[in-house]
């Protein structure tokens, strides 16, 4: 059962220099309760794909074609005020930078409460407070009751990212989009945050769209993997297939360019993605 189906999505950016086809006719599905990873380098269109789903593409960008079907509803046909109800309630997003995505002048609790205020109007103030405390507890913030009134600057990077996750999960969305949620974090904190996302998914059955360029992270979280290159999907496969039997030359180059303890030979030359190769000339590998 698919929660989200993206069909022939095209998102272009217009400038004096011409048209940049950031997302150029891509299609994929996100099954219920599963994690789909999009991997690719900067400029591959992976973040633009996630922003297109959230309806956050702004001038000079434009979605010029395709469908984004979420439980039978095409997001691209919704009006802005209808889309606003979807965001935060059905689909929510965690951003890369925990240091800058929180508002420094509001308490942590207030910022989580905001999502509830907007989308769960039937709750009383007291109920909302308890819910916020529960969500802080769920993401593993110690002393959640005291932390409710804390300002973001008092929290470490890992804790801030947990707060971001708590905001995103507050209304129990069906789809969580995580755009490089651990890139700015230390490895041990990254491991904690990834574990947390896995646990939340198990508990709540949330589908996750995970954007990353770190293939190690992909192997920890993904059920399905989409490899993007210059606005196109060049390979789509289950995580196991992708790592054991990568088929597209670009995927292979990407996999072999990463130093991996125990696999790549120490101090040996790493393979690189070759700028002179036109990877789009190879057939797409979609399984």
């Amino acid at each position, binding site marked *: 059962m698919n929660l989200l189906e993206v069909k022939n999505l095209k998102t272009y950016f217009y400038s004096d220099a011409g048209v940049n086809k950031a997302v150029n006719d891509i299609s994929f599905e996100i099954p219920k309760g599963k994690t789909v990873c999009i991997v690719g380098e*900067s400029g591959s269109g992976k973040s633009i794909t996630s922003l297109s789903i959230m309806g956050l593409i702004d001038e000079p960008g434009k979605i010029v074609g395709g469908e984004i079907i979420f439980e039978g509803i095409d997001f691209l046909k919704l009006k802005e005020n209808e889309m606003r109800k979807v965001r935060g309630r059905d689909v929510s997003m965690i951003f890369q930078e925990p240091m800058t995505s929180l508002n420094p002048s509001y308490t942590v609790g207030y910022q989580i409460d905001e999502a509830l205020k907007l989308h769960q109007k039937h709750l009383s103030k007291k109920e909302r407070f308890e819910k916020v405390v529960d969500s802080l507890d769920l993401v593993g913030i110690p002393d959640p009751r005291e932390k409710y009134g804390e300002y973001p600057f008092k929290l470490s990077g890992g804790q801030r990212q947990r707060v971001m996750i708590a905001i995103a999960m507050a209304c129990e969305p069906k789809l969580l989009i995580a755009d490089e949620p651990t890139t700015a974090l230390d490895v*041990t904190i*990254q491991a904690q945050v*990834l574990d947390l996302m896995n646990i939340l998914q198990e508990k709540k059955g949330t589908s996750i769209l995970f954007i990353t360029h770190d293939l190690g992270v992909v192997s920890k979280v993904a059920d399905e993997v989409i490899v993007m290159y210059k606005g196109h999907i060049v390979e789509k496969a289950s995580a196991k297939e992708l790592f054991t039997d990568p088929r597209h030359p670009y995927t292979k180059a990407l996999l072999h360019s990463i*130093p991996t303890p125990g696999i790549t030979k120490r101090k040996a030359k790493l393979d*690189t993605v070759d700028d002179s190769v036109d990877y789009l000339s190879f057939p797409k590998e979609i399984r």
Partner: protein
Amino acid sequence: MSDVVFKINNLKKYYEISLGLFKKPKIIKAVNDISFEVKKGEILSIVGESGCGKSTTAKLMLKIEEPTDGTILFEGKDITKIEGEELREYRKKVQIIFQDPYSSLNPRWKVGEIIGEPLKLNTKMSDKEIKERVLYLMEKVGMLPEWYTRYPHQFSGGQRQRIGIARALALNPEVIVCDEPVSALDVSIQAQVLNLLLDLQKEFNLTYIFISHDLSVVEHISDRIVVMYFGDIVENADVDTIFTHPKHDYTKKLINAIPVIEY
């Protein structure tokens, strides 16, 4: 011993943080009594998480910061005391490659000027000789000669890092401190820069002090690894020992936290 380039003894760096006029300042022990050696021609990595003191250690070795206590012997001489001409000589021998190739290059300067600046300041070479040397360095780091007159913004992150590397090489240094040189780069570009660093090390017989939080990269490139945790060195051993028989709990925790591809 002649093959020891750096010998660091009981190095300490404390920062005082004022908590208000009548309160006692809080003391942050960024580097708390560490000792280690760097051998000639080796790649020594200093690893740890944010705030562990790895960058402070590098800054002390580069004499960007003054230590609170302790000595740093470079080829037998304590560099914590040197100044003037001696310091100039030291700075020629120990160079740095910075983490962020976007903010560490002057956007108003052409590539040729950026790479040639250390030569202009520190040698008596003529303009023509400097240009020749810059073009030679550009070739060594894999840049085309026609890029000499381009500006940094015309390059991608990986190419910019090459500019930084060429500049660090300009004065024929003995030691290069690499402060997270690939962590701002895409994985595919990261591989190119790591390959380049390894090639150059062999060709010019360089010693690298490699500061990083990425253990997969460190495993690939290092001979020896120093693990830092809250200002202390918790483990110092060759790369094999660290990865196959880590002794300290923190080292084990770090290694287990690396997301490795396992199928």
